[in-house]
């Protein structure tokens, strides 16, 4: 399988996983965004929220990194700029989810 096909397959698999996760999150976001500290911590430290939110963050960054790299491919014609932009993009897509999940794991009520 060539790389472009793999990239397309990964995009499609992650989008199928993301659809229910995004729907679950926006419904819960509306019900918790105005709640106090303890209630919000309780939401993020109990299951299945902890597990589902971690998955959402991982797949959202994975999907977006692939998606935005396609935009770079279409609109950035300078190879050097495109490489730097892709490196920053993929680094952020790894670092932000890892840091968020670590903070989530150490979060206590």
């Amino acid at each position, binding site marked *: 399988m060539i790389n472009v096909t793999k990239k397309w397959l990964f995009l499609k698999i992650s989008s199928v996983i993301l*659809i229910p996760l995004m729907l679950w999150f926006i*419904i819960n976001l*509306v019900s918790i965004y*105005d709640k106090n*500290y303890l209630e*919000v911590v309780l939401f*993020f430290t109990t299951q299945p929220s902890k597990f589902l939110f971690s998955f959402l963050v991982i797949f959202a960054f994975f999907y*977006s990194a692939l998606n935005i790299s396609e*935009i770079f491919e279409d609109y950035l014609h300078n190879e050097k700029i495109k490489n730097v932009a892709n490196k920053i993009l993929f680094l952020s897509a790894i670092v932000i989810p890892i840091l968020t999940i670590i903070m989530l794991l150490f979060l206590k009520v």
Partner: protein
Amino acid sequence: MENKNPISPHIQVYEWHISSLVSISHRITGVINILFITLICFWVGSLFFGETVYELVQKILLSSFGKFLIISIIWSFSFQILSEIRHLFWDMGYGFDLKVSKITGLIVILGSFLITILVYLLGKHII
């Protein structure tokens, strides 16, 4: 002699159609969603740094701008969900007919607003 031909692709030379509107919006919301997810990660991070930091972030969320931000996140996610479902149907070989494509494009646009309202009402336990 100066060449006055437009450089292709140039978005302003095309006549707008529902399909092109949904297509460009799909890309824009894709980029905006990752910014929203990053903001959500910072919000979760504020919980880790304690109640004082969280309350500072919550002040912004409870302002008019904060509420606008929450509604924007819901709409942008809803649009991406519907548009992605439309893409998945295309990948399976359905919905390429011009008329069907226009209808599904309209469903994505109008449906995203409808889902935003429904999600808000569901989240607030109004329905």
